């Protein structure tokens, strides 16, 4: 199981508290984890990535093991520490504004 930390706005939208756990089969990637999140919480479809292009929304960022994975190809395999649930995949609403 993969642990995903969502920003507060999306936790409220999905009506969840705390971290979200999802199963992403095969070799998990950010894309497959997002597929699993959207299947589990359909309201989040189009909130993290565009439902048509599947591109990350510009003000959403992904962090993995302390590193910014926002610009990594969405099909990049996630590290074992994330796959095992030891470390979370962080979905963050970028700080934008003054």
């Amino acid at each position: 199981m993969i642990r995903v930390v969502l920003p507060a706005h999306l936790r409220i939208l999905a009506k969840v508290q705390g971290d979200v756990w999802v199963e992403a089969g095969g070799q998990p990637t950010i894309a497959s984890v997002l597929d699993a999140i959207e299947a589990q919480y359909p309201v989040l479809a189009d909130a993290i990535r565009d439902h048509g292009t599947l591109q990350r929304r510009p003000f959403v960022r992904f962090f993995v093991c302390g590193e910014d994975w926002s610009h990594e190809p969405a099909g990049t395999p996630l590290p074992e520490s994330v796959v095992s649930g030891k470390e979370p995949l962080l979905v963050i609403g970028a700080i934008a504004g003054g």
Partner: protein
Amino acid sequence: MSGVRVLVGTRKGAFILTSDGKREKWEVNGPHFAGWEIYHMKGSPADPNRLYASQTSGWFGQQIQRSNDGGETWEPVGNKFVYDGPTGTHQWYDGTPHPWEFKRVWHLEPSLTDPDTVFAGVEDAALFRTSDGGATWQELAALRNHSTGNRWQPGAGGMGLHTILIDPTNAARMYLAISAAGAFRTDDCGQSWKPINRGLHSEFIPDPDAEIGHCVHRIALHRSRPDTVYMQKHWDVMRTDNAGESWREVSGNLPTDFGFVIDVHAHEPETIYVVPIKSDREHFPLDGKLQVWRSRAGGNEWEPLTRGLPQSNCFVDVLRDAMSVDSLDECGLYFGTTGGQVYASADAGASWSTIVHDLPAVLSVEAQTLS
């Protein structure tokens, strides 16, 4: 026991204000969807407890929320707004072609007869419809595919379809307005559209009398006279009596004819209201005095309504979707400001009181009359 429910969309959430028919004491409920921009909320005329809200965010995109119990509880419904067919281009601010891109829903207009049918006006300008209570949305693409569509340009706030008026006597007819393409009308349920901008004059565009390109801020009609439509344009207050075939200016003695809102008295089709704003450079009232102006002659002759409104040091704006009327015997008026105030009048504008004065900037106000 009659009552009023006022739906207020703000930059940081939605609020629901309720009162009995006296409209003296108000209950404020909210914020709903805290932290999100609520461009518009509106109830179904066929089922007043069926509400729809456009919830949007620069971070997380578009959501549509629906309530079946007057706003006590909400559920997200469909948010897939996909243009039908090739999107093509419109003009960007600099005149270059720019691809059509969905950004947000500006306005939700429920059907007059079916609670599950709603029209949505979106940015970049297009018209969508749901007939299953918001679960799915289909574009009425004839509007965007109009032969003038590739020449439409966004207004300063974006290229939004911001006003939708359904003719209560003719289900096939609808008016809408787009910033800054102008006003359009369909007589065949949206299968074809006609620009209805003859008589509009806009000095800021290359051809001031062009077929399209006018920055229409808001249009309004009275249900008993659907061929008469009133318009607050970027500058100028206008009126048509032939369903938009031609317009004439009725700004008359207004101190400034710039503004955003315009609305019609619930029972008097020739009584209309605007909130004059100083200019397109200075989006606040003249001289710091917040005034609603009323014409009882369908325009040209206007009177200021100031009792209860701040008459000094007031520098707020009233945005295009932020005025509404109720239909109680004594018509009530409501408007919200970018300063977070919501003002109410229970006597057709003669006097005003503040329902609430410290909300986030108000984007939209819709009054529902409850029986």
